[in-house]
């Protein structure tokens, strides 16, 4: 339940924040990498660095991470198959993998693991559609739904991050 509440908070913050739709969409696209690829990986440290250093929406990145984490779990078999095809069945790419396998620091990121490489490639391929899709969706949302309900009590409550507190007040005793 906690995660559902946090998710709704992130959703509201991302969509209603002051960032432009492009910043939110970039955040979602970068956050998708955290969700689609194994989280505790070296490349994700770099992604976090990019999220923080570039003026992309951090709530958007959080939203992207949360949305794409279950997608990542569901797509693991696909990523494994993709990674196997790239690592084991493509002789043209062999020099690239050998170079990555022996490259200082990069080798620590486990670049020759089927899930890691399959999910990174999956994210790279999906990042651009995710960005443009998210940007269009955010723009549409702000022009329609947000404009209509911005003063609604529920929206205000979410913006004030009180929803989780309210949930804690009413949740059944454990």
């Amino acid at each position: 339940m906690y995660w559902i509440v946090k998710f709704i908070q992130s959703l509201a913050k991302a969509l209603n924040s002051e960032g432009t739709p492009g910043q939110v969409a970039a955040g979602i696209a970068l956050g998708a990498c955290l969700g689609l690829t194994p989280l505790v990986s070296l490349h994700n440290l770099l992604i976090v660095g990019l999220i923080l250093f570039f003026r992309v929406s951090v709530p958007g990145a959080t939203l992207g991470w949360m949305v794409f984490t279950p997608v990542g779990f569901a797509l693991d078999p696909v990523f494994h198959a993709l990674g196997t095809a790239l690592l084991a069945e493509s002789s043209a790419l062999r020099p690239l993998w050998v170079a990555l396998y022996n490259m200082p620091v990069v080798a620590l990121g486990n670049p020759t693991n089927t899930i890691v490489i399959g999910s990174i490639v999956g994210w790279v391929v999906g990042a651009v559609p995710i960005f443009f899709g998210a940007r269009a969706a955010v723009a549409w949302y702000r022009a329609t739904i947000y404009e209509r309900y911005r003063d609604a009590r529920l929206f205000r409550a979410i913006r004030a991050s009180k929803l989780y507190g309210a949930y804690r007040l009413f949740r059944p005793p454990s």
Partner: protein
Amino acid sequence: MTENPSTRRRVLRPSGLSVFAGLVVFVGVIWWLYADRWVERGVENTGASLTGARVDVDAADLRPTEGIVRLTGLQVANPDQPMKNLFEAESIVGQVRIDPLLQKKVVLERVEVLGVRFGTDRSTSGALENPDPAAGALWREIDAWADAIEVPELSLDALTGVVRTEAISADSLATVRFARDALLRVDSLGDSWDERLERIDPRPRIDSVRAVVERLEQFRLTPTTALQLPGLLRDGRSSLESLTSLQREVAALDDSVRTALAGVVPTAERLAELRTRDLAYARSLLDLPSLEAPSVSPALFGGTALSWMRPMLYWARTAERFLPPGLDPRNRPGPRRARAEGTTYDFRRGAEWPAFLVEQGDVTLSIDGRGAAAGAYTATVRDLTTTPAAWSEPTTILIGREAGPSSIQLAASLDHTGDVLRDSLELVVRGLELPAVSVSAFGGSLSLGVGDQRVSARRVGDEISLRLEWSSDDISWQGAGVDTTASLAVGSADWGRGLVQRAVAGLERIELTVGLDGSISSPSLVVESNLGGTVAASLRREVGREIEAAENRVRAEVAAQAAPHVERLEGEVERLRAGVAEEVGSRRAEVEAMRARLEAQIEALVGGAQTEAKSSTTDRRSASRTQW
């Protein structure tokens, strides 16, 4: 064109860099706090997958700035005996190269292992809850190999009672089975030859030739019939060719009969071979002990040898698993995590460093207790790596003794640098307290006392040759005491124990060799001992007559069961041969007779025609002279 600073400010978030730096520092601190624990867990998990049993480390101390890792209190459980340690080490100090670490490669420039002890007791079980499936599969494979090896039994029970030959079944005798099969083939050949004889039935052709011969015989050469002569001669010669063809067919059939029957009739050598097999089968039913030394040694020590060889075979195959030859990419399960593990590929060709390498390891070993092997040893390991082909230097291990009454020398080379494995190991230990060897056939065990042990192993590709040799001058029989002077029933347990006791007492030195030969996936077991020869000689001396009599009875029974079948076969073959010979002979005689008549007639006609031609010429000359 200069960049607008306000645009850069819109794209970048400089404050985020400091947050990121803070995050990196935080990750670094966490790593610093838990690195020792992670190293400890890493060693325990890797060791467990390597040995198939628990590996425990009391503490790990990682000093990255100095490149030193120190492990204390390492215990490696014995997968065969979970309450014992395979070995334990007080401390292991490794000097780690930092550059390869950045490539995720562990290269230990130097390792010092102190206080190694073997076979120590554990306070908790070393069995794994979820053992490595690959290690389990390997054990199952080796168990299946061991189960498939037939260790001969040395049972003397058959000597005590009446030799019962009823168990010998004619259906199981190779000679009888051969004779039955051969009889079926003789029947089938008989049918086939009848059919072929019918097919080349000469009667119509002989009748046709006879008609020609009769026409030739009735022909009278006159000036009026002279014109028929060429036609008659042509018919006669054509019939002659037909007869020649018929003769060839009959001769071919005759040859075929002889050849086929020769293949059916067993030769003396074949019969002897079948008889030998039948005798071996009959003997196996009666459990008559073989008195040959090569059979007695495996019967005495085969079971014990198998139990020694199983772990040696396991470690030989494990060495291959963890030190694979060649440079093709290998795959292994990825790291454990909430997400799927996937498969991690190791691209070893062109790698600067192997995934794991010990450039030099110095090990101080000690064997506790008061045994002859107790003492301190030093061992040096060089170029031990999991990617031998990438390192191109074979692994060498040398062990020497520092203190103690006995001597030990070990030299090993594991050359996995090419596609073909080339391993060799030579271990010689002198003055070692050798274990007692169970001799279940005689209900006791043989104490080998203090002696020498030599282990030699050689592997090229999949072929393995492994020998464990023990020699001792200090042997004694351990078991229930037997009054060797008393008269005991031949074949009884006490009699057997007494016999071995006397054999051992008369032996000044024992030499026992067990080993493996052949393919590493299914090698054959080798067991040799001079005790086998001595026991065999004693058995021959004491029960030779009984065994000989029993064997004679078995031989007679086998012969009695097999002989009627062989005789019947020989009779059938002879009958068929005679029948076919008679048929073929009569055909051949008839054809020969007809051929003789035809040739005579042709000759007569040709002769008559020439005489007539001469006389006609003379008459024409006389007439012309008269006219002139």
